[in-house]
């Protein structure tokens, strides 16, 4: 298998502006060409689009709008982890030798049909994600004594981190007190414990080890990949206080990359709700089971931004099909040393965790400089 690296990236600001999905996508493709030396449209073998949009043939539309005539063009849809799954598909095309250069383009509109999985009738009349989030939270509180203050620290930390992210949806931060007093949605989920869907696009250029130096002097390598789908329906989660797909996917990614949790310098994890960050820290092996809250408290009190430095989904916003790609771009820029005020010193290894539909599936990537 060929080594696969990241050669360039592009983002749009996350907003609720009225803009078409096609325009969003092309807006994040342009910086790919601005940022890669010697890249021309003819170099691109594969164009993959990541979105839950009902618009059709988007990979071909974006290719045409960008002047690209790729060998392969299609979309990848997997609700909230469409983005990283799209990156894995592009990786597979390159590592197998079918392609040398792949452009991955993710975008979503605020009114995305991917927000609720209508198929899952086992959720009954409680289809909205706040309900599974609330049941996860109840279970974690019962099992490990997690508190509402613990949850508020996740959101406060990530909103604080997002202040240094110029692409973030939010223009200001929220304090611990504002989060504690924000609107109650259920007895353990407040409005500011939730990530907010929005418009946004993120694109990334992958290339094989054979050609990547043509486009960049600082390639970042995808060293580990783990994916796991437990089910589609929420009620197949046996233990509501942990995310089994995440622990299994991360185990595969660690094994493939010969990296252990203690080697990870910076993490972008899927904080769809505050409880998800606490559970993900535990299931990724970064904190002991039941100690995720203490880990977050330490980050919060010491201004440590190594977990979700761009603000995560809660701080930056959550345009579903773009989210996994935006997370990967953050890891890429951190390893390149180009994250400005968000930069984690001497970051060499990064982990990206992206999941869907109450962690019924998870994708984990490990990147190294």
């Amino acid at each position, binding site marked *: 298998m060929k080594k696969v690296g990241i050669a360039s990236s592009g983002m749009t600001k996350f907003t609720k502006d009225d803009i078409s999905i096609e325009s969003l996508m092309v807006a994040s493709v342009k910086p790919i060409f601005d940022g890669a030396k010697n890249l021309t449209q003819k170099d691109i073998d594969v164009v993959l689009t990541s979105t839950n949009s009902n618009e059709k043939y988007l990979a071909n539309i974006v290719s045409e709008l960008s002047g690209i005539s790729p060998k392969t063009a299609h979309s990848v849809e997997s609700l909230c982890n469409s983005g990283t799954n799209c990156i894995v598909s592009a990786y597979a095309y390159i590592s197998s030798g079918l392609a040398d250069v792949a452009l991955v383009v993710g975008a979503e509109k605020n009114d995305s049909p991917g927000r609720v999985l209508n*198929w*899952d*009738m*086992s*959720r*009954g*009349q*409680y*289809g909205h994600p706040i*309900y599974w989030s*609330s*049941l996860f*939270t*109840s*279970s974690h509180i*019962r099992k490990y004594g997690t508190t509402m203050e613990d949850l508020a620290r996740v959101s406060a930390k990530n909103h604080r981190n997002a202040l240094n992210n110029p692409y973030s949806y939010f223009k200001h931060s929220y304090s611990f007190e504002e989060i504690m007093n924000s609107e109650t*949605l*259920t*007895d*353990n989920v407040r409005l500011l414990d939730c990530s907010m869907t929005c418009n946004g696009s993120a694109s990334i250029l992958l290339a094989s080890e054979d050609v990547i130096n043509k486009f960049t002097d600082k390639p970042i390598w995808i060293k580990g990949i783990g994916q796991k789908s437990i089910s589609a*329906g*929420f*009620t*197949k989660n046996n233990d*509501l206080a942990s995310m089994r797909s995440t622990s299994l996917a991360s185990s595969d990614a660690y094994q493939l990359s010969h990296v252990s949790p203690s080697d990870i310098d910076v993490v972008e994890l899927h904080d769809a709700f505050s409880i998800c960050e606490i559970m993900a820290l535990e299931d990724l092996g970064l904190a002991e089971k039941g100690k995720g809250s203490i880990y977050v408290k330490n980050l919060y009190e010491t201004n440590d931004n190594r977990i979700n430095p761009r603000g995560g989904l809660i701080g930056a916003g959550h345009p579903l099909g773009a989210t996994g790609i935006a997370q990967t771009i953050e890891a890429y820029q951190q390893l390149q040393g180009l994250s400005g005020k968000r930069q984690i010193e001497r970051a060499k290894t990064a982990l990206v965790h992206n999941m869907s539909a109450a962690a019924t599936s998870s994708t984990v990537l490990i990147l190294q400089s």
Partner: protein
Amino acid sequence: MNRFELELKNNNFICSECLRCKKLVWPPSDYCDKCFGNVTWRQISKIAILLEYSYKGNECFGIVELEGQIRVIGAIQSSSKLQIGQQLILKKCDYDGKAKFVFELQEDTKSI
């Protein structure tokens, strides 16, 4: 509406069961998800076990398990404090584009 949805609308919770290995196939499907055997419809017991719950305002909702295999989220009605593992009764089900389930604490049922 399909058969399952029509039965739910008539306050009747049915599920597909494999004719070959007898596994309950939930959510209902045309084939068994274990052995791909053909399935038939059968009535589901109204007895459920409470696995977890939370509140939205005064409304309690929770995840319950029926017949040790089927898990659903439904409304939970109770006049006393709930405990995990308590036995509930399926009081009502319905379908209006979404499945709806209402469960009641068994001791409340007995006291009526």
